């Protein structure tokens, strides 16, 4: 009797486990485990940034004393770190300004006016979408040398602008095409110039597409390492990811400083991501989600 009951119960349990609750439980466990794996390295990095090197070796997982900021002071006073950070801001900012300005211009022309060759021009931009530009690094290097902008941040700004334009034109043309004609036609009847129509009537409407295109480009540009590696040698001109390699090479044994450097490098983008996660996810996957 008792055996029969347990069997029946076990059977019920098994159905329960296989049922909705159990299945969702399994999925929930997978998600929780994955989130721990995703966050643990970042938490360990931040914790270690506040520890001395011996503390890191003795208790790598321990919670540190967050008032102990000697590692950060060392980075602030003894390294070129702030310079790298500033350079990254300059290069990324200038590239983004150019990408959004030029990208909007091209997309507006293609999306708003019917003219011969507009489809061909769109195809020309789209061709740049999938080409791995890393493989053209030798001619790019020679080109930058001929333009005398090797070891000059203009080389980075120009390459990033060219790389960012295809996606920006693609996203913005699609968006601009969906805008209604009525406003534009009304303004034209009133005698407004084409430039005025674009600037005061249409541009305010394309801001959402600019945000998506902006985020899609700003993350890879901020994080890029390959082009500075080839174009920039002068330490004062290096961007953050490139400067990090110099920095990591200098302090190989001082792990507290190493983790602080990594934490400082990661902090700006992590903080912005936490605030704008929805836009980040939409922007960075926009090329792949249609």
């Amino acid at each position, binding site marked *: 009797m008792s055996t029969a009951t347990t069997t029946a119960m076990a059977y019920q349990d098994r159905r329960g486990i296989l049922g909705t609750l159990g299945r969702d439980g399994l999925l929930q466990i997978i998600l929780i485990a994955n989130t721990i794996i995703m966050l643990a390295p970042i938490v360990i990095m931040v914790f270690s940034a506040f520890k001395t090197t011996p503390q890191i070796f003795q208790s790598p997982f321990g919670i540190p004393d967050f008032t102990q900021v000697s590692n950060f002071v060392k980075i602030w006073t003894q390294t070129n770190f702030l310079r790298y950070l500033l350079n990254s801001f300059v290069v990324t900012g200038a590239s983004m300004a150019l990408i959004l300005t030029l990208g909007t211009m091209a997309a507006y022309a293609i999306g708003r006016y019917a003219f011969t060759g507009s489809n061909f021009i769109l195809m020309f931009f789209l061709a740049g979408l999938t080409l791995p530009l890393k493989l053209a690094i030798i001619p*790019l290097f020679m080109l930058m040398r001929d333009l005398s902008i090797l070891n000059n941040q203009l080389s980075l700004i120009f390459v990033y602008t060219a790389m960012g334009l295809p996606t920006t034109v693609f996203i913005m043309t699609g968006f601009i095409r969906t805008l209604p004609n009525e406003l534009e036609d009304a303004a034209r009847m009133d005698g407004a110039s084409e430039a005025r129509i674009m600037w005061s009537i249409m541009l305010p409407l394309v801001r959402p597409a600019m945000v998506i295109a902006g985020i899609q480009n700003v993350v890879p540009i901020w994080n890029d390492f390959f082009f500075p590696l080839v174009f920039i040698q002068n330490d004062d001109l290096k961007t953050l990811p490139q400067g990090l390699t110099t920095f990591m090479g200098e302090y190989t044994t001082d792990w507290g400083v190493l983790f602080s450097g990594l934490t400082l490098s990661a902090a700006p983008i992590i903080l912005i991501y936490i605030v704008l996660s929805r836009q980040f996810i939409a922007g*960075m996957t926009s090329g792949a989600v249609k």
Partner: protein
Amino acid sequence: MPKLRMTGRGLWITFLIVPPLAFVALFIVYPIISAFAYAFFDWQGLKRLDFVGLENFHTVLFVEPYRSWTLNAFKNNIIVFFALMVLQNGLGFILAYALWRELPGARFHRIAVFLPVVLSTIIVAYLFKLFYHPLFGVVNISLRGLGLDGLAQPWLGQSGTALWSIIAAQAWHMVGFPTLVFLAGMQRIPGEILDAVRMETESEWVKITQIVWPLVAPSATIVFTLLFVGAFNWFELPYIMGGLDGSPFGSTDVLGLYFYRTAFGNVSAGQQDFGLGSALAVLIFLFIAAIATVITVRLRAREIQI
């Protein structure tokens, strides 16, 4: 009067379109076309010498030691691609399926899985290099703490484990990307279809294999193609974690590293060769273009319109 207006409009369009076109032409199209031309010449440093036809291609494919280097790097790229297919895209699909159910905390999990994606690859590379340190890295410290001293090893220092350790770091870095692309694909599946399926079958397996997987085919096409292109362009992680020579003993050498090393030289060899480098670039480029086209066409055929 109408004619004058037309020219005004034409000028306006020209003003809008020429500057962006010029950027793309000068910094993308021209360098890529030049890369093909460069490969047919002999180079000495930055100086272009004679036209040599296909000799550079012949050298990197058939002349030792280049032949072994090319084959070794190519073999490693293939391992990287298939490993990431499972660790990155496969896991991404499972995570997307779990997130799709909108269980409590799904929003938080979604933000967490994408967090590493926004980090610079260089930060990820150094972070994991420190984690894999034989004595003080958290990986070995954890293993010893669990009493698994036997498993603690110099992860990046031996040929057998170095490449796989770097692949694991890459999977951690990027698994959020396919996850959210698949998730977006699943969220586009119409509710009626799912309701109809629920009436037909209780089996989760049937639902996934017969309904969800075919309906997210467009997401799969994009994610697979991007992974393929990415795997054969792989550079930053092996450069930082394995070094420019693909240490130890070339076990982490990949085409991206090998190309860079051949073109710009390295500390030990010092020799830079733009001709051989360009030939490698052209071969990698053609290979990626050909296979990516095949993948896209084959997978597109599988996609169904809802």
